[in-house]
């Protein structure tokens, strides 16, 4: 395990060195001189994004299943969860967990202290909690937009709740919800910049550090360009997946309808 972590660290260093060697001749001096910092931050942001979106999706699936289960004991807590996390700013959530819970220290948190000490872990936790609430709401929109007849047909075929969920409801709800889900991933990427307020040197954190030294505004523009590159790449990947999972000859729903789009 330790060996893997070590070689991953080496790989990251090699990656930022390699990328910067390639970018050096084609970028302005100011960027080139700080390039490894930017790329290091880029990688940290990418890590946070990948982990938080994957874990957040899994949590969201659990929440939405509780929400549509029809059992108040499950659906009410799920509803409260989405209400609280969608109703408060991400920055407040982050500071409650990092500065608030962190202030309890080793005495109050016991074995959890090493976790809450690290800005990266708390940042990841906050992003997971936050995005899962939004994704759950998006998926619920997809499930509720599903034609009622399909669920009834599945019931008539004798499918149980779980089988219906797995074969009929979820695969279709995901297709309906996909464009909105793509938006949420972009918002998650942008939200991840806030972890720089809890000492994490992600892309935003590095950008702020470099800016604090040089006080040159173009530093922010370089940071912005790197975020735009990442957002563009995500958009392309999500669109590719959308085409791959589209059912041939079935017209896609008008996903951009603002009236039915899940609200942020």
């Amino acid at each position: 395990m330790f060996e893997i972590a070590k070689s991953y660290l080496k790989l990251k260093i090699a990656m930022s060195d390699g990328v910067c060697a390639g970018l050096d001749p084609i970028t302005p001096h100011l960027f080139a001189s700080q390039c490894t910092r930017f790329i290091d931050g880029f990688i940290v942001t990418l890590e946070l994004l990948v982990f938080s979106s994957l874990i957040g999706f899994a949590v969201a699936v659990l929440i939405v299943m509780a929400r549509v289960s029809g059992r108040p004991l499950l659906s009410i807590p799920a509803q409260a969860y989405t209400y609280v996390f969608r109703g408060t700013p991400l920055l407040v959530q982050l500071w409650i967990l990092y500065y608030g819970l962190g202030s309890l220290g080793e005495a109050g948190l016991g074995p959890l202290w090493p976790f809450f000490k690290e800005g990266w872990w708390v940042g990841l936790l906050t992003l997971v909690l936050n995005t899962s609430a939004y994704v759950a709401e998006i998926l619920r929109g997809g499930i509720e937009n599903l034609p009622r007849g399909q669920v009834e047909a599945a019931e008539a075929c004798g499918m149980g709740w779980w089988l219906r969920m797995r074969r009929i409801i979820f695969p279709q709800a995901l297709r309906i919800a996909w464009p909105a889900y793509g938006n949420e991933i972009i918002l998650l990427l942008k939200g991840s910049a806030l972890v720089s307020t809890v000492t994490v040197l992600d892309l935003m954190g590095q950008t702020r550090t470099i800016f604090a030294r040089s006080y040159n505004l173009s530093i922010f523009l370089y940071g912005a360009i790197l975020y735009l590159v990442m957002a563009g790449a995500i958009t392309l990947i999500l669109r590719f997946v959308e085409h791959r999972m589209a059912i041939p000859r079935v017209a896609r729903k008008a996903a951009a309808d603002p009236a039915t789009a899940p609200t942020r």
Partner: protein
Amino acid sequence: MPQNVWSLLAFGDTGWGDELLAGASITVQLAIVSLACGLILGLILAFGRLSHWRALRWLTDVYIIFIRGTPEFLVLLLVFFGLDQVVHMAATGLGFQSGFEIPKFAAAVAGLSLIFGAYASEVFRGAYLAVPPGQIEAAMACGMSSSQVFRRIRLPQMWRFAIPGLTNLWMVLLKDTSLAAVIALDELLRQAKVASEATREPLLFYVSAGVLYLVLTGISDIVRHRLERSAQRGFAR
């Protein structure tokens, strides 16, 4: 402990309750002023995107892509430090002593409305295009000029199509005001930070701030339902 908690959240010199509420008031003011500026900017940008001039369309497109793909936090800092440097340069250029500072409230409004405007322009454009073309043709067949068509047919209905999108953006804006705490504007989250640093009770004050945000978004939710209902008046859903 509960006695201690209530005395910390009390009003007056000893507690921080009034400071938190004052912060919440700044938060609401910031959101409302940004909303007004952002709506105007959004309308201008929407017409840029719908314009016949390719250069204008291209320019607004680039702007919107930039805002959509850049963290709000970065935009806010860029505007804050950017305005600061511009004002500083202008002041020294005009022969004033340096030490001129841009008000933080103005910087935060500028940043937030630049973001809001970009998203609002998408909503406005969608609402403009959502008016059925048959109605436009009918109006023209009645002999209305294009400005009449706009004033009598398009504008009144754009409102109806734009409301769900705009109320959604308002919720985003309200939550984004918390970013202004990072540039030390005395809004709700910043007041909670000051209080927690003075009392060493960060958990209590950040949770209190969270509850107040929840109250603000809860009120907005009620207003949103009313607005959406009134916008849908007379239309079968």
